[in-house]
């Protein structure tokens, strides 16, 4: 490559780097900085250096929100995997036409805001809502169940929002799968399940891993779900940060919690890299 071309390619990517520096790195540094300062007055910040915000997180109640978030993320990820894996796997086996139909159906909901779609779930779950009416008509229940504002409805919302990411990852991996290998295993006497277990599953494992990380990491942050479907009773880290920022106006504490959350998710990502020794399948 001659110098001229190299320079032009630098110019081409420069805006992107500057953008990232200004809008990703900049705020991050600001947040880190803020997390060591202290609050003053109703919502102000005084410049000093203190570790007080971090020691406050050690309060068992606040530590518990980290566990709550991790637990909810784990539960949601398991459900997403159980539903998303078969979906993505079999989608890859469909004819080309049906595959694109499926893909389209998966993408269309993204044209509306996630919040709007979640309000749909509220209508579905609420007292004397769609589900209640249906179950009462069938005669399974005789009075409204209290479905909305419960933990299960939060999990349903989580699974609903995150499912497509698992499907895409599994699909991307299953599509690349050489089906002749499965046929060979079957020819050599493997049962249907045996062939799946020894051939398909290991070959689609990268898709599972990236699906898990794509589900798990963002689910740590989908706090508004606990808010609108859970009646604000399940406190996730995100809720805590939101509350500190918007209601209590303790910005330094909110920043400190955010830094810890960021570290936690980085650890998850790092562990993923170490376990799979790869980047995310289906994304690159």
């Amino acid at each position, binding site marked *: 490559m001659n110098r001229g071309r190299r320079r032009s390619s630098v110019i081409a990517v420069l805006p992107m780097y500057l953008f990232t520096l200004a809008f990703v790195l900049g705020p991050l540094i600001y947040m880190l900085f803020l997390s060591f300062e202290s609050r003053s007055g*109703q919502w102000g910040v005084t410049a000093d250096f203190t570790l007080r915000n971090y020691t406050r997180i050690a309060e068992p*109640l606040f530590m518990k929100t980290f566990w709550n978030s991790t637990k909810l993320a784990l539960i949601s990820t398991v459900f997403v995997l159980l539903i998303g894996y078969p979906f993505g796997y079999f989608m890859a086996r469909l004819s080309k036409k049906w595959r694109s139909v499926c893909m389209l159906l998966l993408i269309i909901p993204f044209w509306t805001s996630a919040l709007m779609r979640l309000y749909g779930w509220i209508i579905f779950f609420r007292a004397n809502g769609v589900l209640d009416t249906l179950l009462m008509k069938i005669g399974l229940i005789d009075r409204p169940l*209290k479905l909305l504002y419960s933990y299960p409805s939060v999990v349903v919302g989580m699974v609903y929002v995150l499912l497509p990411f698992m499907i895409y990852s599994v699909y991307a991996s299953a599509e690349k799968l050489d089906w002749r290998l499965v046929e060979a295993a079957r020819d050599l006497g493997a049962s249907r399940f045996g062939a799946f277990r020894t051939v398909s599953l290991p070959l689609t494992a990268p898709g599972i891993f990236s699906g898990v990380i794509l589900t798990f990491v963002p689910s740590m*942050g989908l706090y508004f779900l606990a808010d609108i479907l*859970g009646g604000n009773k399940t406190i996730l880290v995100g809720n*805590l940060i939101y509350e500190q920022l918007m209601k209590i106006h303790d910005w330094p504490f909110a920043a400190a919690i955010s830094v810890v959350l960021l570290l936690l998710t980085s650890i998850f990502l790092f562990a993923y890299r170490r376990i799979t020794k790869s980047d995310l399948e289906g994304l*690159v």
Partner: protein
Amino acid sequence: MKKVLALILSLALIAALAVGCAPKPTEPAVSPDASDPTPPEAGGTLTLYTWEGMFPEEIIAGFEAETGITVNYAVFDTDETMLTKLETAKGGDYDLVIADDYIIELAVGAGLVQKLDKSKLSNYGNINPIYQGQFYDPADEYTVPYGAGVQTIVFDPNFVDIPVSGYADLLDPSFKDSVGVIGNYRVINGLALKILGYSYNTENLDEIDAAGAKLLELAPNIRVIKDDSLENDLISGEITAAVMYTSQVTAALLERPDLAVVYPAEGIGFGVMGSFIPSQAPNAEAAYKFLDYILDAQRGAECFEWLGYYSTFSASDAYISDEYKPFLTLPAEFGETEMIGNVSDEALQKHELIWTAFRDAAGK
């Protein structure tokens, strides 16, 4: 590198899912009659700075027609935004601000508010004295109260069998998983303080701790904690009792007049929205004219019906229609009242802690 970038981009996409809950964008400042091709005769401009939807259009239009002053209605989302802007403008730019009590205390403290010249307010005597002399303006030097939020308990008599007279009744096991409360921790923690007979504004950490323990007794009865449209849950039957914002109580009662409102026996807490003239207001005269215009008994009533908050002008009470009277005017007899004011940082941190513990317990 490419892979890392792709990863960042995908995560950004996912993050975009979450933006649905971002706060509402601030409305640009608009003049309600911006489309009016013939502006009234020159009488200057009144820059009014408050939340959206604080006045019916007829009032603003009527004021413009009567005085020839053009109203420039600037909007803020939160009290904090208002104070920040006012600080940046050094008390200038705006002629009249309407905001919450606690922030006015801070604005006065920062020297951003000018003393009222009451001789310019012929209708000053219309103000209900209950709302005067409060913590944010003890000598009534700076503000005219405009609408008050009064903490009540609203319940659905069709589903509630026990008599409800105060906050303590909400702890009754018959309310299990049926109570909705707003997400305002000073109000809800305060409810527990009141049950125990303490002040909303206590800075005694032991008292706040005791309130925290009381809240844990309430927790099993909590079905939902939220600020937005809690009234809909009461209307639809999702919850059977609620402690909510006054505007929500008004909305619920307009939809379901059969709902019952109780003034808690433990004492009534209230919040006031106050109007004040910033220290360097460019057109303070216009602000006086506007204040006097809305202080008129009949116009005041019109405003409060529109606003859905308690009338702060006793002269207006008589003009409030019967439909609205039960929830926009205070009854003749009521218990003690206390406002929620600013408290020390230590007390606030304790409040945060018991509030988080309460929400956590409610989820179990």
